[in-house]
């Protein structure tokens, strides 16, 4: 019988005010998240033979070998490693790569890990990267990174389709409502559209409450075969389809600032593989680095037509109780955003599919779509998950 790869464990670390409870180095917080996910799966660390890592951390110096470093730290000898780093969407791509490796028999238990202590370290600035190679044509102009690129996409979307700042604010307000149901969320107090509109202007047309948080965080995913899941008594989440793509790195090279081409490409492949229609998706978890990211993603995924995202999110349709549950943990906008957020989309989707999401549990979730975005609208990776 063919091997089927499934997700069997998810884990994260507790946060308070956006910082990891008890503190710790970037290696410590990843080890804690890995242990939590493996405990959740009922699989011991010694069984892990595939390690998938992407991050903003690393031992300084030429080249960075994050899986080699983390494998050593965890005390494992992986025979499959993947350090694909396409930005915050890397972890959705890791699920795809691990699924292929597991189904091919290249590894049996895959661990996907991410962690960041950027808030505790105060390491985040708007200054961006050094002006070398392609960046010499971006950073000399003083573009705030990464918000400036997203701001230009928002401006172009508004120009082409009439999207309004109030429509973007709908997303921030709805996401905050979900966060109010999540005890781990950093920002839980309700906000209004007026609050978003009146928040500090950062890079027009984006304001403070259009932007994701800057927090710490760590998360992990464990995958294995369906057969192994059964042997360990863990409840498998099935992977129905996946796809990935990237189109540019420099915002100046984005093919169309009003369309998220990478998400169109990635999700088309995932839907084709899954063989399901949009009607079959009960829940969407999509990367919300900025409100405009969500709006463009919903269009690119095909839940509405290009240009109709503003109307789609209006009237709090994505809030708790709304027609389209979205980013149910409170998202990067209000739950946490430790630099590369994509792993938390997967953690939340699995919890929802298992019925373990507490006060924010969505009724009757059988199929969930997870979509990560990385870079400056650069990369996209989609995973379609199901609990049956």
């Amino acid at each position, binding site marked *: 019988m063919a091997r089927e790869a499934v997700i069997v464990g998810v884990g994260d670390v507790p946060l308070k005010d956006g910082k990891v409870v008890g503190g710790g180095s970037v290696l410590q917080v990843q080890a804690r998240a890995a242990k939590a996910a493996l405990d959740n799966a009922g699989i011991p660390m010694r069984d892990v033979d595939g390690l998938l890592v992407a991050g903003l951390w690393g031992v300084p110096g030429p080249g960075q070998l994050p899986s080699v470093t983390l494998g050593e730290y965890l005390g494992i000898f992986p025979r499959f490693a993947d350090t694909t780093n396409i930005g915050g969407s890397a972890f959705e791509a890791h699920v795809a790569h691990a699924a292929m490796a597991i189904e091919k028999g290249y590894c049996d238990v895959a661990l996907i890990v991410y962690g960041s202590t950027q808030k505790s370290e105060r390491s985040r600035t708007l200054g961006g990267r050094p002006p070398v190679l392609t960046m010499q*044509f971006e950073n*000399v102009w003083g573009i705030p990174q990464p918000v400036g690129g997203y701001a230009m996409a928002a401006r*172009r979307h508004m120009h082409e389709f009439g999207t309004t700042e109030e429509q973007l604010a709908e997303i921030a307000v709805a996401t905050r409502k979900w966060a109010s149901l999540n005890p781990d969320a950093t920002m839980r107090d309700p906000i209004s559209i007026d609050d978003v509109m009146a928040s500090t202007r950062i890079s027009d047309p984006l304001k403070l409450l259009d932007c994701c948080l800057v927090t710490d965080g760590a998360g992990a995913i464990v995958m294995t075969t369906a057969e192994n899941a059964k042997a360990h008594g863990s409840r498998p989440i099935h992977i129905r389809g996946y796809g990935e793509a990237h189109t540019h790195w420099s915002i100046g090279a984005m093919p169309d600032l009003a369309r998220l081409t990478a998400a169109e490409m990635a999700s088309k492949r995932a839907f084709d593989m899954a063989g399901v229609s949009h009607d079959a998706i009960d829940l969407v978890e999509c990367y919300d680095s900025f409100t405009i990211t969500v709006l463009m993603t919903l269009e690119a995924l095909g839940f509405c037509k290009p240009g109709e995202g503003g109307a789609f999110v209006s009237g709090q349709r994505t809030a708790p109780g709304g027609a389209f549950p979205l980013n149910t943990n409170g998202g990067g906008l209000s739950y946490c955003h430790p630099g590369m957020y994509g792993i938390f989309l997967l953690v939340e989707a699995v919890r929802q599919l298992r019925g373990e999401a507490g006060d924010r549990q969505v009724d009757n979730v059988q199929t969930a779509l997870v979509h990560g975005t990385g870079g400056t609208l650069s990369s996209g990776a989609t995973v379609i998950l199901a609990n049956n």
Partner: protein
Amino acid sequence: MSDTATYEKPQPVIDPGTKPFWDAARAHRLSMPKCRACGQHHFYPRELCPHCHSDDLEWTDVSGKGEVYSYTIARKPAGPVFAADVPYVIAMIALDEGPRMLTNIVTKDVEQVRIGDRVTVRFDDVTPELTLPKFTLDKD
């Protein structure tokens, strides 16, 4: 103009693939590669044409005219070295020859910039070694 040593903003780390662009800018010319195979310009400069992947490229001067494709007004600076400039405009210009480039629009009134505005290059000699091609609004 500042001394190279006192200009604190990011300066491009010029490499052999990008030197012709920055050299041309110092001479107040806007220059970019044009593909002899497909006839299209591209920016930033690459070794292979990103449109047809030919390596048959030539550096050509372009008009320095185009229109605003999109823009943002930075209300928060990209680090402390830009703090004194706030608010300032970062724009993506669609050049008449086709390529888009990121740049600044220099204007007394940042609020008046709109997508579609016609713009013209102007060269800002920020140090004796570095000239940044920026743009002005034709309506200014």
